[in-house]
């Protein structure tokens, strides 16, 4: 039965993971993400799952990849400094096409920065932080409800595309307490198993290969080296490397529209806010107060792969206003996809843009 609760974003994230069948969590404490690990530590053993506090975030990331090959839906949660440590193994998960979910409750950076304050400064690190060319899937919750819903969804996307999926939340959403409606069941889309007689890294038509789980007799060799469809290292063929890397990118990019997830308000507006994560809350307040059909809002629940077709829904748009808790990371991505004016509304330090602040900016464009 659906039940209603009142809880913290980080706890809702853990509950979303559990509802989605996550049965392995490997993590290392870091503010402001620790409550995710603590809740998993309490709940996982009772659900027949495994919680392990690893010795660092490098090991945390490694452990969830290992558990994923053993057949578990697996997850870790961290914040900036830990996210930096995870980068090499995130690239390994990309190259080996390992499903897993990485939660980043963003805080102020660089370095140790502002442990207890909010930020969105890791959006580009999420996209490009590990070496080499690749693509990722990243979701951005703007409420406690979405901490639950989008975490659960991240598991489906990760399994569907055999790639790490990121929940790029932030300190405010992570620590905020709100109403949460917990559904009876969440939609589940698991991994398609590798068919007998098919090479382990031979992709289906959707560019995603079937998953050869360990312990099922596949005898699969998994390596982060450039590999052929047998999974065997073959690191000196230019053609093979290019084909592999392009497939890893295209299996995600060619499904942009299928993956896209956003809300649209006032699609005929000329001035349009684009937001993701917590700044959406201030934008929603502004639109609520303005009641002006000429002010639109594109709220991205998923930032990577960037849903560029959503921009074209706003046919009359002249100006995109992009408030974010960084110096313009996603605003630049918007610029790449439009000829319209893109106004960066950067903010650092941990506080949100206030609705009044955004209204003042908006009035300059009306």
């Amino acid at each position, binding site marked *: 039965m659906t039940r209603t609760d009142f809880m913290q974003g980080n706890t809702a994230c853990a509950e979303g993971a559990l509802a989605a069948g996550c049965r392995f969590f490997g993590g290392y404490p870091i503010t402001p993400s620790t409550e995710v690990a603590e809740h998993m530590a309490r709940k996982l053993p009772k659900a027949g799952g495994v919680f392990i506090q690893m010795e660092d975030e490098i090991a945390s990331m490694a452990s969830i990849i290992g558990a994923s090959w053993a057949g578990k839906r697996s997850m870790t949660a961290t914040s900036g400094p830990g996210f930096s440590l995870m980068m090499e193994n995130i690239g390994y998960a990309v190259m080996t096409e390992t499903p897993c979910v990485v939660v980043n409750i963003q805080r102020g950076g660089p370095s140790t920065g502002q442990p207890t304050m909010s930020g969105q400064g890791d959006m580009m690190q999420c996209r490009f932080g590990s070496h080499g060319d690749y693509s990722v899937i990243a979701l951005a919750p703007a409420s406690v409800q979405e901490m639950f819903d989008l975490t659960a969804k991240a598991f489906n996307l990760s399994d569907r595309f055999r790639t790490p999926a990121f929940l790029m939340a932030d300190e405010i959403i992570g620590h905020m307490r709100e109403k949460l409606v917990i559904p009876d069941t969440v939609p589940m889309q698991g991994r398609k198993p590798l068919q007998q007689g098919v090479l382990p890294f031979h992709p289906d038509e959707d560019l995603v290969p079937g998953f050869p789980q*360990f312990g099922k007799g596949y005898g*699969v060799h998994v390596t982060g080296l450039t590999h052929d469809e047998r999974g065997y290292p073959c690191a000196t063929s230019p053609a093979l490397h290019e084909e592999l890397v392009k497939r890893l990118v295209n299996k995600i990019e060619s499904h942009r529209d299928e993956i896209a997830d956003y809300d649209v308000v006032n699609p005929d507006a000329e001035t349009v806010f684009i937001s993701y994560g917590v700044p959406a809350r201030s934008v929603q307040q502004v639109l609520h107060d303005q009641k002006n059909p000429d002010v639109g809002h594109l709220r991205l629940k998923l930032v990577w792969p960037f849903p560029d077709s959503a921009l074209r829904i706003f046919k009359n748009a002249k100006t995109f206003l992009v408030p974010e808790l960084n110096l313009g990371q996603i605003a630049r991505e918007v610029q790449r996809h439009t000829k319209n004016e893109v106004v960066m509304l950067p903010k650092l330090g941990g506080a949100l843009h206030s609705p009044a602040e955004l209204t003042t900016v908006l009035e300059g464009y009306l």
Partner: protein
Amino acid sequence: MTYQEWFREDRLPHIYCTGCGNGTVINCTLMAVDEMGWKKEDTAFISGIGCSSRAPGYIVTDSLHTTHGRALAFATGVKLGNPDLHVVVFTGDGDLAAIGGNHFIHACRRNIDLTVVCMNNQIYGMTGGQGSPTTPMGALSTTTPYGSAEPAFDLCELAMAAGANYVSRWTSYHVKELTRAVLTGMQTPGLSFIEALVQCPTNYGRRNKFKQVLDQVEFMRSHTVLIQKLKRMEEQGEKFPDPVIPVGEFVRRNRPALGVKV
């Protein structure tokens, strides 16, 4: 079934240099696996990066060739994710004790049910012969051109102090003893650590007065002494080889272990 059936023949030829000791260690490990009677579908080999870490790629079971130093952290996830799997880790001295040193001591502390076989060639083989944490003081490498000025790690002492249930050291000369040690490790619940000293003619021997492959193998024969015997010799003031490499079983015990199949 024989241990040879565990080789992934379509991967041959392998990358190892002529005279390399790693093949001996892989053979010994597979002979132990064979004696254990493990099934291929229930066994997984996991490794980091290095010449030694290429070993899983030559074995027919599921295998995870991971990132440099992190094999034990990946293996922890695999083993806890499915405790029914027999998980064997192949690693090198650099992989295990330099970049992976922290994972090593924590895997031993957790005493997780893995068999860890370290091919210690006392050098970074794959990258062309740089000094490692087990390069002996005074030894030459490309990054210690005047002789290593640092004391080396004793991997077995480290594993023992950190809490592993089974620890032993042999060399690629001691094929029978090494096989038995790996077998005993596999039979012991908890973390089993087997260090196998190996010759690396290309990147260690050549620079350190072992002109022929057999010179280094002969060194491993003549400079190893059984730990218990060495203690006796020390107590009784007897002469022993210098330098001396203690070999044999360092510890076999029953500390609480993690990930043991119930």
